[in-house]
């Protein structure tokens, strides 16, 4: 017993007091920025190197980077001869619209969270309490581990009334991780159908949003993502727990004026 109390005292409070104001190390690859300057003519280094085809060049030869596909390997920043692309340590990249995930030239500010895209029942029902059912649809386990970490002593998502539950009947929405394999698609549908209304869908990780590194695989069945309204996109490979928590908090605390 005394030993336990000693451990408890030694342990102390481990929780990050304010999850919205943490500074991650510089080397952390968070939200990328693309400077609004002309590329070296004819250079496609970043596009060529990107393993997930997240970078595209428009007709006007400006480039954009899709956070929905990006695995944050950082190779494009290395490949760019002019340091036009850089990764910041900003982890608040989760957003309510797919469009907001596309980083364009000159976007240096934080990722836009479109309050109008948030359904109004979300704040009304889930403002102070949200239970989620996670579906691992062929995720590689890093997203799952990070979602688990959201609930640990350090990140302590439970203090906001947000928790993962066992049964979708008890849940208010599902969090999908992984590219949704053919073999998991039916289970994923069953799980979504088992959640009572109103319900939300969160896609966590590049795989869930676009298929990520598995985009070209023949073993995926991603119809679910097209069929249903997605309430929150959490980019990353895997998304940092802080990214996820901040995204969900923004989602349930946004009240449309």
């Amino acid at each position, binding site marked *: 017993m005394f030993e336990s109390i000693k451990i408890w005292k030694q342990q102390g409070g481990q929780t990050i007091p304010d999850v919205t104001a943490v500074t991650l190390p510089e080397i952390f690859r968070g939200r990328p920025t693309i400077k609004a300057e002309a590329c070296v003519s004819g250079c496609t280094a970043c596009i060529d190197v990107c393993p997930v085809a997240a970078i595209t060049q428009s007709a006007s030869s400006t480039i954009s980077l899709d956070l929905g596909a990006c695995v944050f390997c950082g190779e494009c920043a290395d490949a760019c001869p002019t340091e036009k692309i850089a990764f910041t340590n900003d982890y608040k990249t989760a957003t309510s619209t797919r469009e907001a995930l596309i980083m364009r030239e000159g976007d240096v500010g934080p990722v836009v969270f479109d309050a109008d895209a948030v359904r109004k029942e979300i704040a009304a029902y889930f403002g102070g309490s949200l239970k989620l059912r996670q579906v691992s649809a062929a995720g590689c386990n890093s997203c799952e581990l990070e979602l688990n970490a959201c609930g640990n002593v350090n990140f302590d998502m439970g203090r906001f009334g947000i928790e993962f539950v066992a049964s979708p009947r008890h849940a208010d929405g599902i969090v999908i991780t992984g590219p949704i394999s*053919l073999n998991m698609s039916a289970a994923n549908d069953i799980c979504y159908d088992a959640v009572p209304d109103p319900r939300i869908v969160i896609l966590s990780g590049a795989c869930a949003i676009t298929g990520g590194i598995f985009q070209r695989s023949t073993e995926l069945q991603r119809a679910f993502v097209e069929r249903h309204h997605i309430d929150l996109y959490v980019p990353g490979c895997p998304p940092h727990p802080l990214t996820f928590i901040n995204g969900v908090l923004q989602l349930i605390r946004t009240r449309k004026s």
Partner: protein
Amino acid sequence: MLSFSNLDVISLDAIPVLSYGTFLTTVLDHMKANDARHCVNYMGYRLPNGDLECFCVLADDSTSQLFVARYHLAASGTMALPSLSAHYRAFHIFERVLWENHGVQFTDHPWLKPVRYPHDAAHGATIDSYPFFRIEGGEVHEVGVGPIHAGVIKPGHFRFQCTGEDVVHLEIKLGYQHRGIERLMVHPSTMLQRTVLAESIAGDTTIGHTWAFVNAMQALMRGTVSDAVEIERAIALELERIAIHIGDLSALNLDVAYQLGSAVLGALRTPMINFFQWWCGNRFGKGLLRVGQNRSSLTPALQDQLVETLDDMERRYRPIADTMFELPSVLARFERTGIVTTEQAHIIGAVGMAARSSGLRRDVRRSHPHGVYRAEDVQTHVLHSGDVMARTYLRKLEIDASITYIRILLDRLRTASRDNGTLEDRPVRELAPRSMVVSMVEGWRGELVHTSITDEHGALVHHSVKDPSMHNWFALALSLRGNEISDFPICNKSYDLSYCGHDL
């Protein structure tokens, strides 16, 4: 069979093509010769003419030798063959994959059931139909758990045949995670795409799988990396081992509802993976290992930070580890729960932790050393009771051993050369044509085996990935026999096997 060793590049032509009959007797003879031999990989791929080329790789833990044999099956010929599994159960999973992917019918296979259900499976079955073993009579009830489990865990289906609270038999059906990794590996891809793919085989074994992959590629490129890079990789692997082991200890405490243990150990995992974040910008070490280089090196400042992190972690970890293994209510749950005997572990060919907790000494770092491990200064522990307690306590021992080993490696890193590698200037080169390499790395779960085969143009035609879970899932199934069903979570967590590593 052709004898070679870990990371040797061998020419395909050096491997004689046997008839299936000769292949069968040769492999069986080799297995019979020595008890320390087990199958590390047995896979096949289609040649351009449609024929099936199959390789079987055996490892001898006592002599550090690997053996390979191959045979061809003509596309037009018979696909009904006698199986190896009939003699050695450990081959079952490989033969099932061959049946599933290429339609080879193993006539006397004792357990010929689907494995991963790829969309074009030769058996034609979909994930909805699996021939579960069942106990007839209408008095046994079944419990089916999964694919969506209670916690935030990956998908798999567990089918229990129960009499009340007791489990008679557990069968595990996987395949939900199948993403076609082996196919994507040979799909026209850049080396970076393949590396990122290797990082995504199993997120909890990022370092292990990526290392096995880059080792295979480096070998095929006939290049080496510097000593420092090798040591850094070994440090990363041990860090991964510590982080996962601590996380699993925390999860085991959670499953027996010992809150203090679960909270303290859960918090202790954070500094470990956060160190990766400081080192390479990702909490799992994604983006660290690349062919021919590490994207960020362990600078002296980081080395100091690592020492500090380890010291601090040890200080906080010792008391809780001691308390946990002395608390009667915890021990009552762990001891004599989920026993897998040495005999069973041997039959199913268990590897890594699963083998070491059941009395089998299997550790690639010692038995098939490569690079840094040739110094033979890493310590391997073996426990014999085979219960949840053994697997839990082994984790504690391995955490201790890893901390010690990281300190040794850090010492070596200070004096290690940073420029004696041959791939520094040009990390990506052509692969050797018509060659094969077997790359083995001891991840925290056990032996990770990546086998690469190139064609005459030096293009990758087959890259086979074997996660230790392929063998060890059966250990979990066996551990439940005669146990209470409510002990399943701790049995499962004590193994913490990979679903995605198995399903690929």
